[in-house]
């Protein structure tokens, strides 16, 4: 029976041109209407939502930063109360780390990875939809809590015992801890999708050494997420248990220990930095190759550096705990392991410099942001070498020096590449170019504003200003530098307003981009802008690391996928040889319903342990609906 069915199935080798496009587009299109939008499993639609939502959280988190800078602009300011300020810095850190930096990087991966490896959708597209809804609900949960004055106020690190029930008997730390659970679920889901997509869905011929560097970076990041996030989930769940059902994981009077929290938190927290930074390096490599007009120097060096960074990042969490009274030799070893990460990071920087050296740079906005990245990130990396030293850290730990350091690393290392990436991929995502004139203003204001805002903080830390203080007395001599820093923050914030204006204007009236406006080399530029639902009419075949530079006129393709149902081509892990055709799921409302059920369960369980009981049946129902066998042809065979 199945043989007969197979013979009658229409494949894409029977069709050509417009007929093929229309047909494939028809089966991959997201259903129209509001319900259709909720059912979408298209990685581009989900990815776009992810990016927009993450940027919305960036603006919110940035707004909090501006308010804090207003408060600190002069001594003994009464603009914000202590309580508000403590909520603000907690919300700022949590939002930027959990709702902006990690999600936005994964969002770009969700959008770009399938295009760059030449497939039609991510692996597990429904899981992807679920992941987005969980992220959205978790973020909204945090911000609605903040709006109704239950915003967390114990820092984005929520150290116990301050975050324990005894010292914070409100619901605020629970909100924080459960927001973590939401975003971790979302991040883990995306990681699994990325790993499977990269391993199994690459276009035929895209061997391991032909994978674009951005995809490599996201692959390493995905593994980091999978190994780091469980640690914070254990930590935050134990915290909720301590607070809700009186377990004593962190209670030193009952055999627990507050430092257990710090170990678990930073075992996640330090790789977290690289979870944010490594995608940034991928963006840098992608942008640099295109605008330096040559492949990035040292492709294998960069990949090995990424992997080395990934491994090393798990061996240096203790440098966040140098002043907790650790054994001296142990602390000294973590100094060495922390500094060691300068080697793979340095190698990447050298490769990029060599690329610029030999290339013929075209100074468009994305490249400007990459150059800004190098200048800022190297400084941040070097101040990182300083804080890795135990004696120096005993002075600068928990001061504004560290605030300066990690903003140089995170904004320099991730946000500058990210804004460059926005300028770079905006044409692909929307079909329109961003304004180059506004882009230059955007860059220069961001570059100057950033440095004016954050450089003085190095000095502030050294002259004694601790972090997380809502005010300081007039006799501390910190007012001038703080005012300068606040001025810089205003300029920096304005540069983001320009970006927003640029995006809105260009969406309406930007120049049409065409398929490959930058003459870039990777597969996402081989399809139209924005890409059609099926990404590619036929799956491309890759014969070179830079397929579009090899032969611009015609990209070879394979044929043979069904045009009657959603199918992707699976290939082998190392050599990317075609293996089998695999059905790809249809749009479904179940991921949304499952996310709603999970949300009710998660939020309920910070109020009563019984939520675990009544919260699970709806989830079970939703999951049964999700996985109900649809009886695809493949299953019948």
């Amino acid at each position: 029976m199945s043989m007969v069915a197979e013979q009658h199935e229409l494949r894409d080798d029977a069709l050509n041109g417009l007929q093929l496009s229309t047909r494939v587009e028809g089966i991959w299109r997201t259903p129209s209407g509001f319900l259709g939008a909720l059912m979408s499993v298209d990685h581009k639609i989900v990815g776009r939502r992810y990016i927009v939502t993450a940027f919305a959280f960036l603006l919110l988190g940035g707004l909090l930063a501006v308010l804090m800078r207003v408060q600190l602009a002069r001594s003994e300011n009464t603009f914000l109360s202590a309580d508000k300020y403590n909520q603000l810095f907690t919300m700022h850190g949590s939002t930027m780390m959990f709702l902006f930096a990690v999600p936005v990087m994964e969002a770009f991966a969700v959008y770009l990875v399938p295009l760059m490896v030449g497939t039609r959708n991510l692996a597990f597209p429904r899981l992807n939809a679920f992941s987005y809804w969980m992220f959205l609900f978790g973020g909204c949960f945090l911000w609605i809590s903040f709006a109704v004055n239950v915003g967390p106020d114990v820092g984005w690190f929520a150290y116990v015992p301050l975050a324990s029930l005894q010292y914070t008997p409100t619901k605020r730390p629970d909100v924080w801890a459960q927001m973590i659970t939401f975003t971790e679920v979302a991040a883990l889901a995306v990681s699994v999708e990325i790993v499977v997509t990269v391993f199994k869905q690459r276009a035929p011929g895209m061997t391991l050494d032909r994978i674009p560097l951005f995809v490599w970076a996201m692959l390493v990041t995905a593994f980091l997420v999978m190994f780091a996030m469980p640690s914070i989930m254990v930590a935050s769940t134990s915290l909720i248990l301590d607070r809700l059902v009186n377990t004593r994981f962190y209670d030193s009077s009952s055999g627990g220990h507050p430092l257990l929290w710090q170990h678990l938190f930073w075992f996640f927290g330090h790789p977290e930095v690289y979870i944010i930074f490594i995608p940034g390096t991928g963006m840098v490599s992608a942008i640099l190759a295109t605008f330096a007009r040559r492949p990035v120097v040292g492709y294998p060096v960069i990949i090995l550096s990424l992997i080395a960074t990934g491994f090393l990042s798990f061996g240096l969490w203790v440098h966040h705990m140098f002043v907790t009274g650790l054994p001296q030799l142990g602390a000294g070893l973590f100094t060495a392991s922390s500094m060691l990460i300068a080697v793979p990071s340095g190698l990447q920087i050298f490769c990029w410099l060599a690329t610029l050296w030999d290339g013929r740079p075209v100074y468009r906005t994305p490249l400007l942001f990459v150059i800004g990245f190098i200048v800022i990130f190297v400084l941040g990396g070097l101040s990182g070498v300083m804080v890795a030293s135990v004696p120096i850290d005993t002075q600068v730990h928990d001061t504004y020096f560290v605030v300066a350091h990690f903003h140089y690393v995170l904004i320099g290392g991730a946000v500058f590449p990210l804004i460059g990436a926005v300028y770079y991929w905006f044409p692909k995502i929307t079909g329109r170019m961003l304004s180059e004139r506004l882009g230059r203003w955007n860059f220069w204001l961001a570059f100057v504003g950033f440095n004016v805002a954050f450089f003085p903080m190095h000095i502030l830390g050294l002259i004694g200003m601790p972090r997380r203080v809502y005010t300081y007395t007039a006799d501390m001599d910190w007012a001038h530098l703080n005012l300068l820093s606040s001025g810089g923050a205003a300029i920096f914030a304005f540069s983001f307003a320009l970006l927003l204006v640029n995006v809105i204007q260009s969406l309406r009236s930007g120049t049409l981009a065409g398929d490959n406006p930058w003459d870039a080399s990777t597969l996402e530029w081989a399809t139209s802008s924005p890409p059609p639902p099926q990404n590619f009419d036929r799956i491309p075949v890759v014969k070179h690391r830079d397929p579009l530079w090899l032969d611009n006129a015609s990209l070879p393709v394979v044929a043979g996928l069904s045009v009657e149902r959603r199918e992707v081509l699976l290939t082998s892990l190392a050599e990317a040889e075609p293996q089998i055709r695999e059905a790809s799921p249809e749009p479904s409302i179940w991921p949304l319903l499952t996310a709603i059920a999970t949300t009710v369960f998660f939020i309920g369980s910070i109020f009563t342990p019984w939520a675990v009981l009544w919260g699970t049946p709806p989830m079970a129902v939703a999951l049964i609906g999700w996985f109900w066998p649809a009886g695809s042809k493949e299953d019948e065979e």
Partner: protein
Amino acid sequence: MPVPMRTALVPFATLPLAACAGRQSALDPQGLQSDEILRTLFIFLIVAAVVWIAVVIVLCVSMLRRKRTADQPLALDAPFEQATGRVVFALGAATLVIVLGLSILSYAGQRTVFAKDERALTLKIIGHQWWWEVRYEDDSPDKSFVTANEIRIPTGQPVRVELESADVIHSFWVPSLTGKMDLITGQKNELQFTAKNAGVYRGQCAEFCGLQHAHMAFAVLALSPDEFGRWRDHENQSVSSPTNPLGKQGEQLFRGRGCALCHTIRGTLAGGQLGPDLTHVGSRTTVAAGTLPMSSATLAAWIADPQHIKPGNNMPRMPLQSDDLIAIVHYLEQLK
């Protein structure tokens, strides 16, 4: 009709605060340890500056130098690629050598900073939300005493502070003397330092510890050994009852209006354990854990409305008549 004390004292709360907090800067080392740390910091700073400038120069040159003209991204020059590979490798190796060198240097500095001296003067510091309990302990109990928010030490002599917390995690930091060390619930940490010069050094809590973390400072007064000895002998003594009527009234009010439930004044019936020991409070330099400089006005403002000056702290606002407040302030001030 008596004016409610709070209203009457509002002007005090806005008095310009005189600068007397002392120095608080890692760049102004006044101790052996802070000296050593600053030396290490400078070496790192120089290495960092050289590397950063080199990178920026290479970046600028690579942007400005003349390039090949044809736009053929894949037409690469094989000898150049090989040479570049060697340069990148060499720079990577250089990075490795530099960071290993710095690690060793750092460890040497760390050994010096954390070196222990058994002859050190020992005191115990217990962190509270949001003040510091300071215990001078001696083998003979009659030489042990408790004070708060101010530490006096002799110059030129190593001091060991044992650090504990009564509630959440705090961090003890006097940047002019040495780096910080956390006070962790259920754990005993310690830190040693030696002040080189006499002076007032400000310290501040460096680990976020809740609502009033910003107002948890203290002063370290480094005195000559002789002066320190005299102070210690004096501080060890209990206070004697005030002789003037206003002082006597103040003492009674201190007991009668609830102050004594939380505060101890040795030699009197006031024996509360929740708040700072006030035995020689009149001789201290600050009020409310380094928040205000000590004076009649600031002390009065603080007692009249602690929640205005340090919102959320654990000292409640006591309804006091103007005369009573003046008496209490007078009493406390003369507890030198």
